[in-house]
């Protein structure tokens, strides 16, 4: 075969090779033709279009940038975040349908300032939601939408930055982690309670004692990142 076609064939096959590299147990997954498929990004970094409105009454872009910095600070993992382009438009429930169409390959972060978009989706009161479109055969993620609920003021009960970091984790392909379920505030009996400050950011609830602990990624978060995107 002529060698000049090699790069083209490599491009064609790369999504399928990537299956072999993706992994981890705390990863979003699906079964495709009896095969366990993990979800992962096909390329890094990821560029985002960011809502032009406010988040929790403040500058949401700064919070998103801080969230990116936390993920990008992980050792031995490529940077997750690329360009953050803030839109001029404030995305609300009235224009969400037209601005955030699915499967267009544009990754969008929406500040749902009054929580009405999430309510319309049938999931009110959640702190944030990460929606991904992926190829069922390869698990490769092709479209990302993150919604952050700005109607719940950022506090020790529910921290906006911790939530953005958490939802970004979902869109990198990471699932929830039960570590933290055995915890004083959760009142669940079990062995080896973990300190609130060490609960992984991908724990599915606001960290009971202080959700700001979710601003730092923990060993289990890093473990998932390394398995999917490490050397």
């Amino acid at each position, binding site marked *: 075969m002529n060698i000049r076609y090699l790069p083209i064939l490599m491009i064609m096959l790369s999504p399928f090779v990537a299956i072999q590299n993706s992994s981890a147990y705390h990863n979003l997954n699906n079964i495709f033709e009896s095969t366990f498929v993990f979800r992962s990004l096909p390329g890094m970094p990821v560029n985002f279009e960011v809502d032009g409105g406010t988040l929790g009454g403040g500058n949401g872009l700064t919070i998103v940038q801080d969230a990116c910095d936390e993920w990008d600070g992980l050792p031995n993992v490529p940077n997750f975040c690329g360009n953050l382009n803030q839109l001029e438009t404030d995305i609300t429930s009235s224009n969400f349908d037209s601005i955030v169409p699915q499967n267009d390959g544009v990754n969008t972060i929406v500040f749902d300032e009054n929580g009405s978009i999430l309510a319309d989706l049938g999931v009110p009161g959640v702190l944030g939601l990460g929606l991904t479109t992926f190829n069922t055969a390869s698990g490769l993620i092709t479209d990302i939408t993150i919604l952050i609920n700005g109607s719940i003021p950022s506090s*020790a009960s529910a921290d906006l930055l911790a939530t953005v970091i958490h939802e970004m984790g979902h869109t990198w392909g990471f699932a929830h982690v039960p570590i933290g379920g055995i915890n004083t505030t959760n009142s669940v009996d079990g062995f080896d309670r*973990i300190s609130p400050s060490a609960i992984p950011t991908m724990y599915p609830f606001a960290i009971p004692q202080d959700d700001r602990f979710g601003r730092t990624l*923990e*060993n289990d978060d890093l473990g998932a990142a390394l398995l999917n995107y490490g050397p």
Partner: protein
Amino acid sequence: MIKTKKINFLILIMMLFSFSMIVACDSGSNRETDPDIPTPPIVGDDDDDDFMDDSQLLTGTGIIRGSVVSSTGTPLNGVHVRAVNIDDTDIQMSSFSGIDSDLELEDGAFSIQNLPPGTYRVVIEKMDDRSSAFDPDRYSLFVIAGTNVNFPDEYWNGADESDEDDPSDFEPIVVSNGSTVNGIDIITNN
């Protein structure tokens, strides 16, 4: 020759189109106050003592592998398997049973990878009928597909592991750089 070049160009465009569809994103409560809780980190604060640092990662991590079976020998899937560093119990990593270390579906198998070097104990926990903190719906479709079983939490107990061993007895597991510790086979006490 010109025609061949045109065909080549067309093929390249088609391939890039195909690829772009797959890699599109490439371009683009009320709570009580506990005075003993440490101060939360501030934005950009990377000073976390529990976190393995770059030098640890560069020298490698380890893997713990094993299985979970019921007292009758039935492999159990969807069981939460947690590795806890004995010297610093805030270093914890976990996985679910049902996937082997090659990331293939294998009933009862588990592996916990990228563990910082240290001495660990391994505990199993059921994920159902317990608390919303362990509600399988919170975690993954795979866990939901797991076996709905009722067993007490317990540690892996080395040679004494059985369906009648004391759940709180454990055997330490030493994880070193680049090592894989096999044979952490746990029998539930149900």
